[in-house]
């Protein structure tokens, strides 16, 4: 059976796992003592050596990002955590912060010390009130315990940590839009270079890391590089959270070594619901090109998924069975990208609007076969032609669904509308008078 490796999730079944007492009982805040006794450059080297790569989607090596911050430059440095988790299908950071916010706080202290930042921010999405409470309380308790504030643990290191609550904008998960938002502007991506490591928050050198990346650091400091590298694959080391949702029998979070396959994960989730057939799935959120049954044995690490034509992304595995209309699914995602486009770049702002119009016509059977090529042509003019990856993400479901399910689009035209019954995809029986 597939070996699971609960590290981040190891304490989540304890009722008080989110309190400072619970965290310390499980060995919490030991790593910060160790890290603050090391030279900051050695902490950066440790994270580099571990091979930890960003868990927010792009997979950039975390230690290398920390190493890009210029030192001795007499400027303030900032450490910013991206807790804006909004990529459709992605649901790993929020349950982690609900169950154990202190592991993030500890990772932030270590990261800030390493890059020599005295001010850190957690940018959390605004639609998760109870998680915001838990993180706020964790920060306050960490201050009281002397892990934040002046002269932390008597080591002469000062750190202020502020929780900044967003207000409903997917684009703020993009790191430069996040920084604009944190500065008090509309969240719109910046042209790079300069990268945040040179000119980030308030035009100062800034690290922006995903929650799971930062939360993985205390375990690496505690257990060492070799322990971390003993899990995962050659270029994708360590453990990570895979989130299964949709038409599996038991959806949920699975912490496993990088490189596990969907076939293994579906088995852990009890198989497909009702024994239905898998139709399509996302490896890492809606912005990563769709996969099908043909990809069940693709290793879910950065290289494996890329080699098969998609991206590991956030490891948000959204599973759709044979009852689901792929055109309906893609139209809904496209409406999302249209709604969330910040409007800064014309190809994205205008292009996503046209994609929705064409897909709506196709879904209702009013389009024509030539529209399929028009969709691809539009995608070609949107992806890669905007400041940020939202535009690329918008094109992904369309291009990949046309690659695998072109006939299903055409069936909508010959059928004069959608041939699927949406009630069959729901978790409950709508047929029973709509009662349940």
């Amino acid at each position, binding site marked *: 059976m597939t070996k699971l490796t609960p590290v981040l999730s*190891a304490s989540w079944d304890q009722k008080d796992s989110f309190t400072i007492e619970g965290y310390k009982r499980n060995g919490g805040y030991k790593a910060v003592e160790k890290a603050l006794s090391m030279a900051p450059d050695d902490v950066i080297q440790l994270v580099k050596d571990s091979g930890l790569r960003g868990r927010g989607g792009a997979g950039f090596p975390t230690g290398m990002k920390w190493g890009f911050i210029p030192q001795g430059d007499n400027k303030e440095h900032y450490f910013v955590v991206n807790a804006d988790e*909004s990529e459709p299908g992605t649901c790993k950071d929020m349950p982690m912060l609900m169950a154990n916010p202190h592991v993030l706080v500890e990772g932030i202290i270590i990261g800030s010390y390493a890059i020599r930042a005295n001010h850190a921010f957690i940018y959390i999405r605004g639609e998760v009130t109870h998680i915001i409470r838990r993180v706020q309380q964790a920060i306050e308790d960490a201050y009281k315990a002397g892990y934040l504030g002046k002269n932390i643990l008597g080591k002469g290191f000062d750190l202020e940590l502020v929780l900044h609550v967003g207000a*409903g904008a997917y684009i703020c998960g993009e790191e430069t839009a996040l920084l604009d938002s944190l500065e008090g502007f509309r969240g719109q991506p910046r042209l790079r270079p300069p990268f945040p490591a040179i000119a980030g928050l308030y035009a100062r050198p800034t690290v922006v890391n995903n929650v799971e990346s930062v939360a993985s650091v205390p375990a690496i400091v505690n257990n060492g590089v070799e322990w971390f590298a003993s899990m995962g694959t050659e270029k994708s080391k360590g453990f990570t959270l895979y989130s299964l949702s949709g038409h599996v029998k038991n959806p949920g979070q699975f912490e496993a070594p990088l490189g596990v396959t969907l076939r293994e994960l579906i088995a852990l989730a009890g198989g497909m619901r009702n024994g239905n057939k898998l139709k399509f799935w996302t490896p890492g959120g809606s912005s990563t090109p769709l996969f099908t049954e043909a990809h069940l044995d693709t290793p879910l690490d950065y290289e494996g998924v890329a080699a098969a034509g998609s991206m590991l992304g956030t490891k948000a595995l959204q599973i759709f069975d044979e009852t689901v209309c792929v055109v309906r699914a893609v139209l809904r995602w496209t409406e999302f990208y249209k709604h969330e486009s910040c409007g800064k770049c014309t190809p994205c702002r205008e292009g996503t609007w046209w994609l929705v119009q064409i897909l709506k016509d196709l879904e209702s059977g009013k389009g024509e076969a030539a529209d399929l090529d028009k969709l691809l042509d539009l995608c070609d003019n949107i992806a890669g032609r905007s400041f940020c990856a939202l535009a690329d993400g918008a094109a992904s479901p369309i291009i990949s669904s046309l690659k695998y399910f072109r006939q299903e689009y055409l069936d909508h035209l010959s059928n004069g509308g959608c041939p699927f019954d949406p009630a069959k995809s729901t978790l409950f029986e709508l047929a029973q008078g709509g009662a*349940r």
Partner: protein
Amino acid sequence: MPLTAADNPVMDSIINRYPRSRSAIMPLLHFAQSKDGYVTPDSIEVIAQKLNLETAEVSAVATFYTQYKRKPVGEYHVGVCTNTLCAVMGGDAIFEALKDHLGIENDEVTADGKVSVEHIECNAACDYAPVVMANWEFYDNQTVQSAKDLVDAMRQGNPPAPTRGPNKLPTWKENSAVLAGLNDGRAHEGVQAGEPTLLGLKIAKDQGAK
């Protein structure tokens, strides 16, 4: 109750969190919503004065983010996730049923001012689909019937507690204060995790026990 001079100490404490005052716009807008329920033209002026900005600069931010409302919402604001996964799993059916049941459209409020509904995007709880949010608290694994029961209870002033949240559902204004970073002392309430969150850990422990 609009923002007034009496709120200055709280607003100053929010501004003082940041190295540069402009960063306080977002929490101040959440704070304004905790007073009025939405962002009023008056509160835009107060915030602009406080931060030494033009009102247009504050308005530009307020209108960009969907959680800032330009008109009153209900005491209980209900969001139904209709992004693809939740939609497919039942979110579309739930949203249609709620609008029909309440006799209101998207972004509208019932005449008694109790409940408003909005279709929302992915709320990071896909393993609990279909997901309904109320005042941005989680109501997991909803059905058409459970969602109707939820809004009925709201109209009677007695909504059930969130699935993963505080012991009692706070009002829209109360939760807006939490989003402004003001601790309401309820972080310890509710579960640490739901079953789907714990599934992999449980299987791992079963594996280890074998």
